[in-house]
């Protein structure tokens, strides 16, 4: 019996709860500092997801802020049926979709590419990174590669972009992605396969890994 009690007791008072769950309980019991901790805990991941989705730092910050405000308003109703991270990612994806739809309808953020045709089917010039001669700034090169990669992400269908960012940027397991997107696991796998194939198709016309891995 004592052994059982000893196993159940935690010196940090968390009662063995998942850290997220402990934060949520603290918030629900009136500890507003817990909200601050949650923001600190998730701000980088949510900002990253928003940035890869929206492709613009300022817009990404607006979206990420909206997500955390929504979290504040809803956290007292959070019952823990899904993981907090799953819930936050789901809300972020929805906010990104809404914001993107809004910007598309307002024709915001649309511009003609300077580097040549973007259509996947045209035979126009392929965009390439500048030659890496001696003295080329690797950081500039990397930043250019990141921009081209972001452009490639922007060209993908929303569902493809979502699943790629969740899996290959956020490094979430299939099961959590399935919960976030409310899809069967098999669908996550097949959609991820198609999304990666599509991204590869877009990128094969532009850059190679050695462009940024040196």
């Amino acid at each position: 019996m004592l052994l059982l009690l000893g196993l159940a007791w935690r010196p940090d008072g968390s009662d063995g709860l998942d850290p997220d769950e402990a934060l949520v309980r603290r918030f629900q019991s009136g500890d507003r500092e817990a909200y601050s901790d949650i923001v600190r805990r998730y701000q980088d991941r949510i900002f990253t997801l928003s940035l890869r989705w929206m492709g613009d730092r300022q817009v990404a910050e607006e979206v990420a802020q909206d997500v955390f405000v929504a979290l504040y308003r809803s956290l007292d109703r959070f019952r823990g049926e899904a993981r907090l991270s799953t819930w936050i990612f789901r809300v972020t994806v929805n906010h990104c979709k809404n914001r993107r739809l809004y910007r598309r309808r307002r024709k915001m953020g649309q511009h003609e590419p300077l580097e040549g045709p973007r259509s996947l089917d045209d035979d126009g010039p392929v965009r390439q990174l500048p030659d890496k001669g001696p003295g080329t700034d690797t950081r500039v090169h990397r930043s250019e590669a990141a921009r081209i990669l972001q452009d490639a992400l922007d060209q993908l269908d929303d569902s493809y972009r979502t699943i790629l960012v969740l899996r290959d940027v956020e490094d979430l397991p299939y099961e959590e992605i399935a919960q976030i997107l409310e899809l069967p696991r098999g669908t996550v796998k097949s959609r991820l396969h198609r999304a990666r194939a599509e991204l590869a198709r877009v990128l094969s016309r532009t850059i190679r890994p050695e462009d940024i891995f040196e």
Partner: protein
Amino acid sequence: MDTFFARNRLSAYLDGNLSDSESAQIETALAQDQSLRREYDTMREAVELLRALGPVDAPEGFHARVLARVQDEPDPGTVVSLWRRTLGRIPVEALALAAAGLLVVVVIQGRNKSPQQDSPADVPAAVPAAVPAASSSSDRSETTAYTSPSATTQAEPLNAEDQRVAQAVPSGADGDLRTASRRTAAKAGGTPSAAPPAAAANSAAVQQPYVADWEQAAPQDQAPITDQMAADQMAADQIGTRGGELGSGIDMEGPRSYRISLADNQVMAQLSAVAERTGGRLTDASGDPLKDLKLAPQGKTTWVHMVVPQAAAQDVEGYLTGMGGVPTPPPTTDILYGSDFTVFVIQISGAQ
């Protein structure tokens, strides 16, 4: 495992999500097929690039800005918070419709009462009850027109004007239909805030496109997305992709399905020949190549999947129709076939 099936497991192989035996089969296929190898390398490189982007730190001061934004928020669980949440759950469209419906009820009730209002003395009595805001003498004639049967004819030009205003500002444009609505109300003789019901009823008609415009224009201003809303949106998101598990080329259509009745064993040979001729193949319901070309026993249904290149899909449809195939709603399937193929799910019954 042949190339056809190996190709569709490349992503899972990349993630290390295949069994040892499947991984070994993929490796064999990669060693034997150079085009498959190139395809795998391209996909792997794309994923490596994406992973190389890595996480990004939130901007400096982000945490403080978020806390500042929620500083003025009511504490969760308070009455204010509950009230805001309740209102936030009601779609604005529903509120607008309810308001429009209420106005219609008021108008109809007013019209029903008007034949009984033979005495002019009844009119002023009805006015304050129906339109408290329109009690000034300058508005009285408008209100009378509203409560009398002739209001219908008087309201017609206003309605037409409303329509012109609405047409002048497309629902998807950025124009402010609220301005148009206020202009219309003012034309009716009232102020925007004290428009007589007839004008308000007409302006409600104008406000409908305005609501649609709001829906398009300001999703970021909506109340926070609740769990239920998130679930609804996710469900809506799935609608566009359901049935598309077989490849991006058929995302929006899913598999095509045909039923062939009164068939004999020859039909399997014919289907096999069609598949072979078009560069496709027959598989069973689990996606494995079909080895036995026999039909199920009498009284049972045989399910065959014919996977053909997209370019041949139209020809195959012609063949199937010629064989007496009848298009049917496609069943749900979660088998991954590839992006350049079309899948025909063929249901054969009545073996002889």
